[in-house]
């Protein structure tokens, strides 16, 4: 630190004097700079374009898959601010911080601006014609099954077009990958309810028991759930809803809960069955299944005290309907399906199916329904790469080199593919490994349609449209690229579409009647659709089965202690960074983590008890080692974590991508073991075991919260004492 003898008082003196100097010498001048600044006018202006007055366009947020509709303010041809579109049933005019940061995706200085062809370690800018010609050349003579496409979740017309392209290549190798996706829960729901994602009605529930579902932060459709949550807290009939969160690492939702139960990692299912047993309302085979789960046994295995289980059970008995959610913490284990099945069974026993778990609507256009990403797809892709099966590989909307678990050795396997094409916004880790990088339009420059996975009231198709002119002349929309590639194969069929916009317009106009525009002429319908930004559809409700098959439900014995790697590694998924695809947006880096208030860096959450045991204090740099690898990061002592677990947030630790992402923090994906969920083959994200040891270095943790920490100096917000310990006559 500074020890040159300048104290605070001296510093202020210097500051004052230099300020005075500026003021004196600037005297008489104002900052008028006539004739210096250029004032740029429009070449051609529409009537509604008035300098200084904002115009608003509707579009769709592309920061995550929830499909919130946005409303962007544009002034002087520049998009300045995004808010929610009130007409959307999903976000009803609201938008989360991640969505707000969408403008920083658009104006990001690190966007790729030209098609780049690998020349050794450098990318050489080439023309689009050359890039397309190169792809055609590399495709020549390649069999269909030697071509693979890895993408994030796709829906809408892009999915249709992409499907047609893959058909034209005669390949079925489309791997839809999302690093953080409820893959196991989807499969478990399919079994229990007959649908992958039922419609959860948090607003109708009187109690929510959530097993690690961070629905206020990063789970499925957080903006929508936040609004339902507000209703839930207001209460159905004046009775304020009670939230109980069961998880091993506190999430944002856990922090909001009335009762937060730290459960031993992986025993969520045991607790669910224990609660069914304690409820005592089950009969038949369910009762047979749970009868072994006595309070004492459950308490011993989960680490949740008997009285806590009794309280939760009493609450569930007292208040109906309730809602039990299985989230990423429950599904992240090798027996994740069983955990989720046990939790779904609890819902069934409580009679919530049909009340707070409703049937979703189906989208009338099944070809546009989203291909949902999961991690099993990455494994298949990785296996194929490792076997050297693919000669041409396309990748977009995902960054597997960054998000694949270290045990996959994905980067090495990726290198085995013959010719790698990445459609990218940034030169992220995956794009850096590609042979050809095609620069994409930002989400605020591109055309598209999107069907959200989680639909709320009725079905809807979201329209994505440019909010302003393109910033860089040589970027292209994903749809335009796919269309251009498709033209290489089926030029006759697609030659009438000049670009993706033309394709989109004609595709929507062809179905005008079904989209609610019957009778309107084409132009009116089109303008109307664009100005709304949403096409609402009357979808029919899908049937809910509501029957969890008990026969296959068998929870494994609780995992034994691992001598070498005693701790569980819980990857923390935060509301702002998610899987790290937006880390190069500085607003997200600088907005403090809601629980630890740390900015711009990663941290290792350790329970105070464990820290004392290991002699660790806040700011110690520790090495977290798994069988796969190790990372070093600062410690944050956090009471909201199970003593047998440590947590590192995902999303940081990029070694590429851009100036705001590169070099900040560490990437826990790197040390993740390749353990899979037994039934679904999804990656079991919470199964990695680690050990930690001090490196001896210590840093000052950069965070917003004060020195006292989250402990409030031992004081409580409102102190309380139980009535039997107080003599009221003396108090008054």
């Amino acid at each position, binding site marked *: 630190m500074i020890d040159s003898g300048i104290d605070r008082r001296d510093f202020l003196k210097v500051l004052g004097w230099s300020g005075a100097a500026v003021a004196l010498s600037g005297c008489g001048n104002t900052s008028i*700079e006539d004739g210096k600044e250029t004032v*740029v*006018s429009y070449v051609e202006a529409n009537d509604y374009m008035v300098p200084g007055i904002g115009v608003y366009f509707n579009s769709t947020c592309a920061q995550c898959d929830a499909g919130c509709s946005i409303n962007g303010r544009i002034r002087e041809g520049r998009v300045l601010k995004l808010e929610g579109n009130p007409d959307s049933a999903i976000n009803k005019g609201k938008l989360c911080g991640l969505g707000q940061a969408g403008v920083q995706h658009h104006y990001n200085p690190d966007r790729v601006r030209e098609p780049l062809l690998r020349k050794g370690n450098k990318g050489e800018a080439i023309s689009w014609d050359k890039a397309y010609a190169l792809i055609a050349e590399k495709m020549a003579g390649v069999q269909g099954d030697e071509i693979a496409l890895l993408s994030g979740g796709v829906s809408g017309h892009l999915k249709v077009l992409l499907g047609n392209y893959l058909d034209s290549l005669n390949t079925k190798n489309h791997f839809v990958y999302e690093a953080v996706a409820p893959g196991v829960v989807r499969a478990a729901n399919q079994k229990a309810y007959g649908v992958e994602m039922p419609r959860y009605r948090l607003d109708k529930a009187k109690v929510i028991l959530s097993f690690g579902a961070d629905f206020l932060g990063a789970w499925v459709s957080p903006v929508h759930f936040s609004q339902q949550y507000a209703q839930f807290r207001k209460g159905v009939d004046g009775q304020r809803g009670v939230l109980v969160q069961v998880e091993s690492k506190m999430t944002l939702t856990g922090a909001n809960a009335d009762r937060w139960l730290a459960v031993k990692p992986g025993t969520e299912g045991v607790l669910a069955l224990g609660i069914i047993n304690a409820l005592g309302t089950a009969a038949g085979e369910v009762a047979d299944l749970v009868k072994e789960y006595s309070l004492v046994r459950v308490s011993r295995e989960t680490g949740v005290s008997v009285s806590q289980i009794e309280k939760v059970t009493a609450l569930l008995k007292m208040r109906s309907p309730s809602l039990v959610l299985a989230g990423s913490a429950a599904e992240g284990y090798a027996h994740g399906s069983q955990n989720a099945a046990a939790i779904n069974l609890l819902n069934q026993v409580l009679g919530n199916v049909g009340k707070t778990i409703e049937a979703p609507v189906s989208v009338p256009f099944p070809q546009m329904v989203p291909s949902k990403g999961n991690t099993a797809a990455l494994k298949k892709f990785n296996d194929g790469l490792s076997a050297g099966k693919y000669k041409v590989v396309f990748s977009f909307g995902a960054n597997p080199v960054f998000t694949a678990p270290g045990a996959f050795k994905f980067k090495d396997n990726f290198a085995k593919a013959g010719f790698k094409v990445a459609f990218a916004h940034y030169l992220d880790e995956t794009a850096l490994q590609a042979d050809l990088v095609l620069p994409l339009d930002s989400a605020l420059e591109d055309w598209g349609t999107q069907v959200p996975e989680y639909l709320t009231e009725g079905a809807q198709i979201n329209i994505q449209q440019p909010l302003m002119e393109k910033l860089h002349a040589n970027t292209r929309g994903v749809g335009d690229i796919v269309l251009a590639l498709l033209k290489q194969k089926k030029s006759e069929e697609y030659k009438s579409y000049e670009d993706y916009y033309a394709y989109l317009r004609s595709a929507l106009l062809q179905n005008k009647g079904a989209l609610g525009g019957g009778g309107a002429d084409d132009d009116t319908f089109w303008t109307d659709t664009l100005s709304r930004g949403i096409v609402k559809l009357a979808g029919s409700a899908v049937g809910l089965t509501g029957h969890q098959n008990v026969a296959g439900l068998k929870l494994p014995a609780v995992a034994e202690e691992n001598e070498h790697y005693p701790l569980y590694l819980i990857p923390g998924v935060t509301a702002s960074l998610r899987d790290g695809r937006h880390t190069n947006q500085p607003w997200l880096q600088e907005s403090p983590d809601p629980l630890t208030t740390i900015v711009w860096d990663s941290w290792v959450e350790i329970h105070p008890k464990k820290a004392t045991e290991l002699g660790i204090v806040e700011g110690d740099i520790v090495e977290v080692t798994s069988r796969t690898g190790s990372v070093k990061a600062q410690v944050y002592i956090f009471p909201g974590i199970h003593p047998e677990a440590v947590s590192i947030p995902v999303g940081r630790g990029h070694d590429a991508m851009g100036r705001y992402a590169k070099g900040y923090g560490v990437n826990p994906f790197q040390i993740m073991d390749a353990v899979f969920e037994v039934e679904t083959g999804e990656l079991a994200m919470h199964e990695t075991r680690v050990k930690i040891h001090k490196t001896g270095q210590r840093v000052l943790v950069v965070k917003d919260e004060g020195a006292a920490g989250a402990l409030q100096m031992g004081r409580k917000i409102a102190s309380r004492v139980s009535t039997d310990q107080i003599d009221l006559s003396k108090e008054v």
Partner: protein
Amino acid sequence: MYRYLRLPILLVGLFLAVSAYAANNSQPALTTEDGLGPQVQQPIEFPHNRHAGLHDASDPNKGGMEINCQYCHTYARRSAVAGIPPLQKCMGCHNSIDSVKDRPRIKELFKYWEAKKPIPWKKVHDLPDFVRFNHERHVKRFVEQQNRPVQEACGYCHGDVKEMTVARRQKPLAMGWCASCHEKDHPVTAEGGTPVDGQAYWYSFQKPVKTSDSALAPKAKGPNDCWQCHK
């Protein structure tokens, strides 16, 4: 001893350094010798006098065309900022004025149009970023409510533009100068369109006062809040 000397030396040094820096980076003088703003080099020397000047009855090829300021500067009455007319506006007329198409300035104009490039005009009237002047409000007040001639109303701040070729700043546009109008007593009768007790418009730096003498209209003294301009 050393300790006592160090701070004054530091302070004096810093003062000199900052003063020198500020002096070297002096902004353009507020007014030139003739009391006007600096001459500004524009990419095209736009002749305001030809467009907005008075007719010359003797020779239609001399004189001006008396075009209303608002015909081109159409944003001034619609927005806080006046903006610059889009190129399209110039072309709207000049596409069909064949007689001047061979003039160098018009040729230059067509070049920009054909390249679909905006003309990089230089700002002649530039306020500091901490001042919000609202054009719309002033145009509404003087032109629409009080029916004053447009050139007079615009001229309060922009000077006699119809006599200029390339526009040049004629007024200081400093706060004291703003006050020179806003501290005058303005009648705020219904004739001026301003509600006497209304919150909406106080034209000077103080709230309007009703005088006991009902024959005399109440007087107002400008926006009485700093944030009306400094926001």
